């Protein structure tokens, strides 16, 4: 090794009088390590066996602690080649398996080693990262009992190393991102994954946050999206008993048939299998709850904006570009709900800009406007004025587009325009009533040039999703906002040939990303800030018009429509969420089998809402 030990006198001279025994042990450890290079491995072998005791009695533990402490003072004599076995033995130790005194000694050794030479930094960081989740063999009570002790030591150790090696957080990032438990493996428990992500979030909010914040949050969002992708729609369709995804609204009778008539129980929930691919849903649900709680803590600490900027960037890069993300987007929804004035508006603006920016890819723009429409429709925390502002800009964009075009109906060529029109109509289905009830917004809404964008040669009313078009026309007519003399007859209530064409292979015509969250635990966080279709007060009266032939009704101009002043605006309502379940059951909007129901068959039923379509769950969307 080429190390020349000082003579005993010199060594002891440097040691303090108060700790001679410890100093002697350090000196012995150095001697042991140096002797390996001279071919004398007897002491070294003894040291190795002490590091790997077969049984962990009190004596063995005492010996282990003593050796680790002694080695911590002799790290500069450790050679990564000569003492490879020793290093491997120590790096394979898990803090979770030991009591606090061993943990302290082990952490002290790792800290000393990491700061002794650049070549050990990565190894030590990897060893500490391995402690981010418990070993599989450890029983749950022990995990819970030791968790705080282990994690607090690990994080304080990472901070110690960062204080002495300032670039270590940069090196830590890829190690943490690559060290995630393999969520695909069946033996990776949800708890392990949750504890790991908890550590990632702890790093983000800790002193290393300035360096690791962005990659940690991006890593968490990536993980959510990975799990999201693992939940396949095909599996959902194959579950014939009830289907993983209940619909947003069920007919009362059908709900009763399904045993969901209990008011205290949510009519919709995600039921996952404990094995196979669907356990991903359980993992995803737990992780999302963890992140929601983290966002809450950030808001309390007044640092939500900082987190939100990173989340938004991550959303733009991954979720927005992903093919029909199902759940991951609710993280940003929840962040927006915590700070509607800043985060909520920022998110809407980002989506709006993505849609308007002409150099963006068409699919990205369509995806953005689908998110925008769904978000503005569902976000209960957003003021109706914010929604109105965005709506105005969307309409302006569509008006300008129409002026520039001299084309006839062409779903594929004008898919961005059609997606914009569909967003406007979808949005108005949810918000028209509250806008009409506002004395300031009502005249503005009446003046909105909907006529020019919906009644033109491009015929968006024929191309957009029939269910949205029909609901919009019905509400618009009742509110005397917009009427058309044309009679719309669609082959299918859910979709039409033209809507399929403009949606393309990706079926972005049927993408409503903020449809009710079907993860049970996550939903409890989202629900208070969410507008369910059952809460929406349409501009028409269900009872009066339920039997009306919708197609003919729109053809008739002199129909009286609905009384606009009967119902309260959405903002004035105070929903008792305990009653929501019952309300959902009572408000039947879409038949359970609507996927196959034709428009003609739906005539004798109450108007169906497009949200019920749950486009993302449609098998065709695959």
């Amino acid at each position, binding site marked *: 090794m080429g*190390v*020349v030990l*000082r003579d005993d006198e*010199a060594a002891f*001279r*440097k*040691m*303090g009088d108060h700790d001679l025994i410890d*100093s002697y042990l*350090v000196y012995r450890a150095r001697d042991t390590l140096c002797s390996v290079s001279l071919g004398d491995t007897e002491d070294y072998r003894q040291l190795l066996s002490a590091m790997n005791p077969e049984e962990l009695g009190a004596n063995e533990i005492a010996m282990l602690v003593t050796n680790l402490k002694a080695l911590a*003072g*002799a*790290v*500069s004599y450790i050679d990564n080649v000569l003492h490879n076995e020793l290093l491997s033995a120590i790096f394979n130790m898990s803090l979770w398996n030991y009591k606090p005194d061993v943990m302290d000694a082990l952490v002290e050794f790792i800290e*000393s080693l990491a*700061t*002794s*030479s*650049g*070549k050990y*930094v*990565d190894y030590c960081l990897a060893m500490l990262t391995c402690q981010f989740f418990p070993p599989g063999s450890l029983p749950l009570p022990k995990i819970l009992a030791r968790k705080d002790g282990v994690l607090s030591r690990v994080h304080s150790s990472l901070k110690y190393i960062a*204080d*002495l*090696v*300032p*670039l270590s957080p*940069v*090196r830590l990032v890829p190690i943490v991102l690559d060290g995630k438990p393999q969520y695909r493996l069946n033996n990776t428990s949800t708890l392990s994954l949750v504890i790991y992500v908890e550590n990632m979030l702890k790093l983000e909010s800790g002193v290393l946050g300035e360096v690791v914040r962005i990659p940690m949050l991006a890593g968490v969002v990536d993980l959510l999206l990975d799990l999201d992708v693992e939940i396949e729609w095909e599996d959902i369709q194959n579950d014939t008993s009830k289907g993983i995804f209940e619909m947003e609204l069920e007919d009362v009778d059908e709900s009763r048939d399904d045993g969901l008539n209990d008011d205290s129980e949510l009519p919709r929930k995600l039921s996952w299998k404990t094995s196979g691919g669907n356990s991903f849903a359980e993992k995803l649900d737990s992780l999302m709850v963890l992140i929601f709680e983290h966002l809450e803590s950030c808001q309390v600490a007044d640092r939500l904006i900082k987190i939100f900027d990173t989340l938004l960037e991550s959303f733009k890069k991954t979720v927005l570009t992903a093919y029909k993300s199902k759940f991951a987007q609710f993280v940003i929804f929840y962040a927006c709900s915590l700070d509607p004035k800043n985060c909520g508006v920022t998110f809407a603006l980002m989506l709006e800009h993505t849609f308007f920016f002409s*150099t963006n890819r068409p699919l990205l723009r369509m995806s953005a406007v689908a998110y925008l429409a769904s978000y503005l429709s569902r976000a209960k925390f957003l003021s109706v004025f914010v929604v109105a502002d965005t709506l105005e800009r969307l309409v302006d964009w569509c008006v300008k587009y129409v002026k520039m075009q001299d084309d006839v109906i062409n779903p594929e060529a004008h898919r961005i325009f059609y997606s914009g029109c569909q967003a406007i109509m979808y949005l108005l289905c949810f918000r028209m009533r509250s806008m009409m009830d506002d004395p300031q917004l009502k005249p503005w809404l009446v003046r909105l040039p909907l006529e020019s964008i919906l009644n033109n040669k491009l015929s968006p009313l024929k191309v957009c999703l029939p269910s949205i078009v029909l609901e919009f026309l019905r509400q618009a007519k009742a509110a005397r906002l917009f009427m058309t003399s044309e009679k719309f007859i669609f082959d299918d209530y859910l979709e039409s040939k033209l809507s399929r064409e403009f949606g393309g292979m990706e079926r972005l015509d049927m993408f409503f990303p903020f449809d009710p969250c079907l993860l049970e635990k996550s939903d409890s966080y989202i629900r208070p800030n969410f507008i369910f279709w059952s809460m929406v007060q349409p501009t028409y009266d269900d009872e009066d018009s339920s039997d009306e032939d919708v197609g003919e009704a729109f053809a008739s101009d002199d129909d009286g429509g609905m009384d606009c002043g009967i119902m309260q605006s959405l903002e004035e309502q105070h929903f008792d969420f305990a009653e929501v379940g019952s309300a959902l059951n009572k408000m039947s909007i879409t038949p359970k089998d609507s996927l196959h129901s034709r428009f003609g068959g739906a005539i004798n039923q109450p108007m169906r809402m497009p949200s019920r379509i749950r486009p993302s769950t449609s098998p065709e969307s695959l």
Partner: protein
Amino acid sequence: MDGLNVSDVNLQVQLHPSRSNNVRKAVLRELSSLLLRFNEKFQGVVLAYEFNIDKVPEILPSMHPYLYVRLKAKLLLFSPQPDMLLEGKVVKVRQESIHVIILGFSSAIITDKDIREEFQYKTKHGKDLFVSRSHKRHVIKAGTMIRLLVKSVDEETLCISGSLLPAHTGSILWLDKHVENVSLTDGICRSNKRRRGNEEESVMQEPGRTSAEAYSMVDHYIKKSKKHREYATQKPSRSEAYSAISDHSIKKSKKHRESAMQEPSRSEAYSAISDNSIKKSKKHKTREES
């Protein structure tokens, strides 16, 4: 402090067409990826940069029409080498080692093997410190600015193994006050001007001041040959974008650096920075080219 220098380099950066609406921002983004990483081409760590776009960006004819941007950049480099004298702040003192941070990002460790016998480890009021036996006021503790000799550098992690064995290493404050004694005992003559230079350099721990002062050394260093420029322009691929700085230029810059070190005073080098000097050097460069 040794190890800091400014290099004039010609760079070629290839930008994705989507970045064409803001070339300068895109170039900044590319260059920022060089920061705080050891770069073999430059043989150092880029701490700061300043650049001008040399010509109007060209579009490379290919499947993906990347923008081809030529830059003239000044890079502030930190190139620690064995036997250099570096300065840093002590962040931790232990019986077995002294931990130092150099320029706020690079860590250095001095193990007890590399601390000269003169220093004795003590604990005073619960604080660890090394005290000189012969000069009681020569104390090294957490917070002390020290000068150390580089033994080795781990380029991957930018961790430096240092030494306090030579007599002209230790607390900067103490060494500067007692430099004559040290010079007599060690036979190391370091001029007062040099010391003043070191004092100034020790301030360069503050990143904000580093680049400004270091840039002042412009044009004492690299002069690139016309030949090299031609060579550089023949390397269009993105992966080789930074290869424009040929070994030749680096060698040349090293020579310049050496010659700059031998100048009578570094403080003079600082004072020599003025627009005039830059203009002069430009003239000189043109003459060289012609």
